[in-house]
């Protein structure tokens, strides 16, 4: 296992380098001057050149990439053009906020998804299966940003039970674990949870149906093992894959939180990304994408190694 973990980590390094290259190249894909958002339109050529030199935009691409990579490796993601604060500081706070809703959403999605998946897989082709499968199709088909708007309409506008947007009363962004703040967490997390719910339910349904059709299950039953005993075997066989899917889903939610966070004005990495795009804050844009993508790569690595550990049947040389 340990040897596999090291080998898998080594395979990940070139991917990480490639991901960094894509993030770096994104800035140069962008049309127009990278400093257009900070300089006044009537700035003189001399000032323009001075600023270009300050940010290093006047060097050859390869040199810029090497310098950028060296700084990134030391944890320095540059300075936000708009706020003048270090990008790493901005991202750290935002990613923490996103992690809260994403983790809660993954948890809700996992609980409901495995429940629906087991029910559907166990009672195949019954009305229970049809209902659970319908919930799963709903989860993967609904545009979640629209579902968020619907939930806001119902629970915030019509019923007035929960706050529609933000992460704290009066737009404050300082998080405290009390009911006033936790209220703000509910709608975004529930909205987000429909995606992992649908995907996990579908995966678990297929897994359970596949496991139940195997000979060892018939063998266990023939031996006289109780249904709950058989159930235990099914859980044990389905768990590694279900957990792996859950891990990957957390990564997708973290990286794809921009839509939900825009609907709920949740001050996370998605909203930060949105601001960075529309204010053309390129260092912030580059840094946020890099951090989220690298997080996804590392999460994939961890999930893969853990799955191999949990499931000894997977032989990966």
């Amino acid at each position, binding site marked *: 296992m340990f040897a596999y973990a090291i080998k898998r980590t080594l395979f990940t390094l*070139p*991917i990480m380098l*490639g*991901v960094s*290259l*894509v*993030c770096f190249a*994104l*800035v140069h*894909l*962008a*049309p127009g001057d990278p400093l257009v958002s900070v300089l006044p339109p009537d700035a003189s050529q001399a000032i323009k050149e001075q600023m270009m030199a300050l940010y290093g935009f006047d060097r050859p691409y390869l040199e810029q990439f090497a310098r950028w990579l060296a700084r990134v490796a030391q944890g320095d993601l540059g300075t936000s053009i708009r706020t003048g604060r270090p990008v790493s500081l901005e991202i750290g706070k935002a990613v923490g906020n996103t992690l809260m809703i994403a983790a809660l959403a993954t948890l809700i999605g996992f609980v409901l998804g495995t429940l629906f998946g087991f029910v559907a897989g166990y009672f195949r082709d019954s009305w229970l299966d049809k209902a659970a499968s319908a919930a799963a*199709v*709903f989860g*993967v*088909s*609904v*545009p979640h*940003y*629209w*579902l968020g*708007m*619907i939930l*806001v*309409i119902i629970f915030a*506008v*019509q019923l007035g039970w929960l706050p529609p947007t933000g992460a704290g009363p009066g737009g404050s962004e300082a998080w405290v674990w009390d009911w006033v703040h936790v209220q703000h967490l509910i709608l975004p997390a529930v909205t987000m949870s429909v995606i992992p719910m649908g995907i996990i339910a*579908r*995966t678990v349904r*297929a897994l359970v149906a*596949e496991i139940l059709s195997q000979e060892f299950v018939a063998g266990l039953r023939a031996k006289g093992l109780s249904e709950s005993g058989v159930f235990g075997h099914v859980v044990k066989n389905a768990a590694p894959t279900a957990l792996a899917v859950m891990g990957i889903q957390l*990564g*997708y939610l*973290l*990286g*794809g939180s*921009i*839509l939900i966070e*825009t609907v709920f004005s949740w001050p996370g990495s998605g909203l930060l*990304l*949105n601001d*960075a*795009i*529309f204010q053309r804050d390129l260092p912030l*844009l580059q840094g946020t*994408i890099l951090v*989220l*993508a690298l997080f*996804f*790569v590392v999460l*994939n690595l961890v999930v893969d190694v853990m799955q191999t550990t949990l499931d000894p049947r997977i032989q990966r040389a």
Partner: protein
Amino acid sequence: MSASPAGALVRSPGYWVAVLRRFARDPVAIGAAAVVLGLILMAVFAPWLAPQDPLQGMTLKRLRPPGTEGHLLGTDELGRDMLSRLIHGARISLFMGIVPVFTALLAGAAIGIVAGYAGGWTNSLLMRTMDVFFAFPSVLLAVALAGALGPGILNSIIALTLVFVPPIARVAESVTTGVRSRDYVEAAKASGAGALTIIRKHVLGNVLGPIFVYAMSLIAVCMILASGLSFLGLGVKPPMPDWGLMLNTLRTAIYTQPLLCALPGVMIFITSISFNIMTDGLRSAMDIKA
């Protein structure tokens, strides 16, 4: 869409007939297929179906609720007829859901087949490059590319195509690698067939079926992503009637006309769930595991 007949010709004709027969026995899938067909017809005949001009509005009649006289589904924030905008919206919204998947199908299949057939360092170079793009969560990659390139239909198509090329290339590569070592390919090589002939005769017939079904399942994902980009202001630009963009511009009316601003999302939802159910039916008719 031209992929299916090509695949059908190479496979034995009995296979697709059997698939269609099994598909026809699934009432839910047939219903979904009918909805998809209806949506496509609605998009094609939008100018004749829409009661009013989707771009012409009356500022005096802004944000009227559904059921207003002369406006069955009300009017939007600029006083434009909602029903007409929703009907016309099918055009650009379906276009944005299908075109990126189709271009990604062509590019991904080409990359996957070349990588799988050539093997060796060509395979490594192509597939490791795909791995890099695969390493991004799909929403993040789409938003990052569309954000860097700037809003617009063409830029969204480029961004979404790049999101879907790696997964399609992976499927094509693994099928091609499997086919390459088959005896009949060896036999074709031994009898002097060139690489292009082998790819055309033996590889394509095996590859097109699986990637076509896989690509079909991506259309719903692509629709939601494309509408999402428009919702963020990174996709289709106003005043074009796109369902995602309409959700964005109507958001400000969420307190005054909640029912009205939910309507475009209903269309996106109906479209994506119909595509999903139809593809699920097709998969089980073809006996492909989910």
